[in-house]
């Protein structure tokens, strides 16, 4: 239909396509699960693959293809991956395609355990995760691992694509069994991931054959018993507009725009919620108050003339001016006065370690949270999580690809939100101050003021605390000992 309109009425086509939504998703599964075949087919059927690329694949299909079909779809993606063999083996690749309704960005990440950090990287910007399960194998350890990471990263929608249905004779029983196993596993997962409750909004299941094209783009005639949508229609129609927090206004100040003495604007991207002209706001951490005077966004179609708008919402990039001259700089956060946040200097967060050099307690790292950069010390690792069994293990360090719950002490107070409430202000990266490497990703669970510093513990309390931590690590008891 779209192609028709291109040929007959391009202006109409362009008009319709101004209003596409953007959906970012991650695909999880190892190569054997048919991930490459699935992505290849989505790219091919959405006509993203160009003739020059396609002719190469057609040639290669005859040579290397594992199928008797004309085209081996896996080669479309694997062909692009060939340069990985030359060295870029562990990285996320971003691929693009579009339908008449949506534009898609796929974060294509390798599924192996040693690439947890890449999966986290891909998942950090995704709205949705496609988790592939091989119908012959069912729910595996890696399915558990992928589901854990997806949930940890707060992806709101999971679609479990049960693949290779053609090999199991399109059996409804096989599908239903896997679905039941997955849901059971997921219930345990939710209990295990108590840090971020209710982070998933939807879980759906689709029986597919990426190889034969069943339920990928077209509804399958081989799977009559399945009444749901094919994967592409599912992706096209899943409701994502409510995934962004539209309630709590958070505006991390990114850049102070001062082109002349008469103008002082605060540029930034709205992390959540919305703001209107005349709204009363508070600047954090200073606590100073004012009102919104103007919201500036040079608008489409204008000759870059100054355009003020009345209301702006996440994730718009705007410039705000205020009614009062108050001192605001990069790193400050503007919020509505009515739901003003408290500030804190101690945070508890889930940490994914991403560097070869393991985490060290008691040394200073830098963190970057939205537009704020500050120094931090890891005071304690409360536990690390085995990403396969979801067991909590007591440890003093985190190594590459390990995930743990940590308590961090910040050098000054900042305004914090939990990650599962607002991603934009609840997430941070950790930077090694010597190598400048990005060594970890963090998701805030809880933030408090450190009044613990005022309390002096007795010897007996310290002894008891030590005893509990040693013999009952599963209680997750926090150390109260003063660090040397």
């Amino acid at each position: 239909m779209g192609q028709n309109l291109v040929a007959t009425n391009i202006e109409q086509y362009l008009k319709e396509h101004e209003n596409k939504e953007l959906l970012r998703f991650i695909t999880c599964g190892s190569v054997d699960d048919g991930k490459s075949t699935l992505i290849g087919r989505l790219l091919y059927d959405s006509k993203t693959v160009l003739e020059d690329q396609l002719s190469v694949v057609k040639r290669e299909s005859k040579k290397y293809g594992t199928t008797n079909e004309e085209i081996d779809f896996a080669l479309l993606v694997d062909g692009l991956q060939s340069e990985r063999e030359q060295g870029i083996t562990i990285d996320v690749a971003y691929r693009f395609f579009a339908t008449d309704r949506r534009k898609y960005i796929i974060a294509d990440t390798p599924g192996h355990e040693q690439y947890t950090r890449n999966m986290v990287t891909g998942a950090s910007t995704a709205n949705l995760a496609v988790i592939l399960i091989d119908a012959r194998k069912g729910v595996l350890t890696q399915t558990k691992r992928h589901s854990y990471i997806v949930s940890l990263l707060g992806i709101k929608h999971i679609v479990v694509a049960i693949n290779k249905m053609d090999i199991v004779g399109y059996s409804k029983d096989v599908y239903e069994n896997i679905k039941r196993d997955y849901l059971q596993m997921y219930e345990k997962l939710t209990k295990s991931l108590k840090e971020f409750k209710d982070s998933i909004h939807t879980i759906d299941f689709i029986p597919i054959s990426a190889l034969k094209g069943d339920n990928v783009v077209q509804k399958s005639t081989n799977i009559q018993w399945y009444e749901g949508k094919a994967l592409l229609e599912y992706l096209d129609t899943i409701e994502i507009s409510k995934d962004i927090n539209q309630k709590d206004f958070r505006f991390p100040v990114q850049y102070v725009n001062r082109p002349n003495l008469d103008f002082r604007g605060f540029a930034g991207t709205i992390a959540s919620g919305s703001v209107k002209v005349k709204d009363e706001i508070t600047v954090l951490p200073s606590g100073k108050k004012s009102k919104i005077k103007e919201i500036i966004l040079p608008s489409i179609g204008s000759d870059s003339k100054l355009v003020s708008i009345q209301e702006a919402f996440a994730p718009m990039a705007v410039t705000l001016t205020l009614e009062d001259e108050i001192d605001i700089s990069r790193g400050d956060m503007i919020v509505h006065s009515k739901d003003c946040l408290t500030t804190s200097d101690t945070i508890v967060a889930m940490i994914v370690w991403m560097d070869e050099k393991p985490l060290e307690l008691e040394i200073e790292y830098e963190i970057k949270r939205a537009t704020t950069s500050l120094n931090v010390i890891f005071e304690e690792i409360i536990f690390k999580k085995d990403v396969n069994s979801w067991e909590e293990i007591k440890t003093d360090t985190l190594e590459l690809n390990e995930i743990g719950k940590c308590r961090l002490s910040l050098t000054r107070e900042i305004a914090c939100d939990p990650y599962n409430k607002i991603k934009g202000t609840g997430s941070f990266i950790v930077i090694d101050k010597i190598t400048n490497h990005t060594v970890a990703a963090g998701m805030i669970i809880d933030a408090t003021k450190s009044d613990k510093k005022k309390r002096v513990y007795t010897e007996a309390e310290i002894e008891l605390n030590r005893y509990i931590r040693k013999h009952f690590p599963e209680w997750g008891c926090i150390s109260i000992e003063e660090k040397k």
Partner: protein
Amino acid sequence: MIDKKQLTHLKQLEAESIYILREVAAQFENPVMMYSIGKDSSVMLHLAMKAFYPGKPPFPLLHVDTLWKFKEMIEFRDKRVKELGVELIIHTNPEGIKMDINPFIHGSKLHTDIMKTQALKQALNKGKFDAIIGGARRDEEKSRAKERIFSFRDYFHRWDPKNQRPELWNIYNTKINKGESVRVFPLSNWTELDIWQYIYLENIPIVPLYFAKKRPIVEIDGAKIMVDDERMPKHLREKAKIEKVRFRTLGCYPLTGAVSSNAETLPEIIQEMLLSRNSEREGRIIDKDQEGSMEKKKIEGYF
């Protein structure tokens, strides 16, 4: 289809790019924006004008002039810079001038190395830039699909694909030591169609060479090369025929092939692009020098 409080994909891409540009301005001492005069550069410049409005972009533009760009490109560049009131740095490799590099004689490889790659390094070293904003897109070329938005370069401008910093959410690590730099790609997530559609919607001026017109064309090694000046060897110039063509991509005129086309308006260009099924780089001779050539060039310091 789109909720009242939801951005369309183009507006989301726009917001993301503006965020990236502001992050550069706020976090680096001495940033610069590469300006190649092409359609992606035009979009990038437009986004920079928006990001800092009512101020001007707080960084200069840098054009590495090989002296072999189309005349219309240079005219467009100078006009645009004047209209917008932005600062422009132009750099040409002085050794290249001395050697009188001529792609017709020295070939595309030597020309590109001396007049583009080496010239770029010279300009960056001279300007001591710590962040260099470029208009590359991930859909353009294989090795770009894996490049970060903030891509670290060592003291020698080298890109190490195996040692990239993880990039999470929209939080970019901008920390570098003296002498190191970061290449920043605010258009990473745009596709060719997004670029055209945005140019159309926002009414962004582009070089007229993108629109089909009758032009003097010589076929050289299967590519339609336009006669832009007298420097094209006489025996070639004499073979020129008038053809209706346009350019999908703009570079040095002897190395950029035109395509036969009737597309005289933006919608017609987009229509042609959607109906033709060849990638936009088909006219680029420098991509085809050797296997995996872009990846190699990037490691050596090419953009």
